[in-house]
């Protein structure tokens, strides 16, 4: 806390550029010491180092994982980090699930995983406007899955969410 917050991000980025493994110590404290956006800057400084990004994700708390998931599409990874998105889709944390269906997940998840992810959003009350690329990836199978879910809700006397109704 001795270092002024405005110098912290630039200094941290330099350290990561010099040694990618320095990010393991810097990333957890980056937002509280460097302010908003510092984690994203550190991730960019990794220049697409998948092994470090993966271990950072695996050692991360929810905030760190969220920062990684939302930055994945900017990190020059192509489809190599899709396992991280699949991991996030297995959690029960709506923030992580929504982030998993951001631009990166939309670009690289398989059709099956993407459809399951969209349906999981509906279950978790995550608005479908939060799902990236839905218009582009929407297909007949996803429409069928949503329609079946709507039928299940109606059978139970429960309301069908508006964002589901307008897509079936």
């Amino acid at each position, binding site marked *: *806390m001795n270092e002024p917050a405005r110098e912290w991000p630039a200094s941290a980025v330099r350290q990561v550029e010099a040694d990618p493994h320095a990010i*393991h*110590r810097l990333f*957890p*404290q980056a*937002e*509280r010491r460097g302010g908003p956006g510092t984690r994203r800057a550190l991730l960019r400084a990794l220049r697409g180092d998948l092994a470090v990004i993966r271990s950072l994700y695996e*050692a991360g*708390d*929810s*905030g760190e994982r969220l920062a990684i998931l939302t930055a994945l599409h900017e990190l020059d990874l192509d489809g190599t980090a899709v396992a991280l998105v699949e991991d996030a889709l297995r*959690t*029960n*944390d*709506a*923030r992580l*699930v929504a982030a998993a269906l951001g631009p990166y997940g939309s670009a690289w998840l398989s059709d099956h995983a993407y459809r399951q992810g969209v*349906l*999981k*959003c509906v*279950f*978790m*009350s*995550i*608005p479908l406007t939060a799902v990236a690329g839905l218009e582009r990836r929407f297909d007949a199978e996803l429409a069928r899955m949503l329609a079946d879910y709507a039928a299940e809700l109606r059978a139970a006397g429960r309301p069908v969410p508006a964002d589901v109704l307008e897509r079936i």
Partner: protein
Amino acid sequence: MRIFDPHVHMTSRTTDDYRRMYDAGVRAVVEPAFWLGQPRTNVGSFLDYFDALLGWEPYRAAQHGIRHHCALALNPKEANDPRCAPVLAELPRYLLKDSVVAVGEVGYDSMTPEEERAFEAQLALAQDNDLPVLVHTPHRDKAEGTRRTLEVVRAAGLPAGRVLVDHLNELTVGMVADSGCWMGFSIYPDTKMDPGRMVTLLKEYGTDRMLVNSAADWGRSDPLKTREVADAMLAAGFGEDDVDQVLWRNPAAFYGQSGRLHLDPGLGSGSEAGSEAGSEAGSEAGSEAVQDYAGNTIRRG
């Protein structure tokens, strides 16, 4: 009334408990890492537990309008198992996390050399990471254990104000009061302290540096015991400000020393110790937090 339970093992509690705690006025908790009923046998078991205290549990708490922070450590009992002790090497990276507000619970269980080594090593980790420490005192041979605890803390060179010594009773409160450390009391249905005896100690020792917790876990315990103490204090003639000091401002000030404690601004914080945010306004802010999209989904996908 706003309540901060500075020691409760929510991992072992149900979602209904969160709702009942919210209704009773609980708006913030600290969950220290401890043993489960079943002994752990490997380091990975600790890591999943720490991850839950940093991930799932605060998320679950937020859905019920309660702010959750944690303290992390290798607990004294499992420090005796050579299969578990290597988790000490993993702790430094965990102590950097945003919602870690202390090292704990550390201390003695059976007062073995292994426990003492882990205790001392973790006091050093607390100093390295600028974190306060939550110290468990043993249930067997408590007075002697508390004396030795205070000696270890003194020898480590930690400022007394950075240390909370917990599970105190009539026989151990005096030496901790004299040490300058914060004093913690666990209120239980049958063992440890009860609300009536707690009020007696508050009358004798005052309300400074005094913290009350439910220490609710997987045993016979009750997460609403903090509220019972608040009600017993009022019935015994303490004012609402005294209750707010013991049940909110003291834990907020102690854990606030980490620089990582984030409480709902509508409920005030340790640094605004004297100001009254107003308990009515506070509960409304909490209800709104429950409605908030980011924390509202209790459904499972």
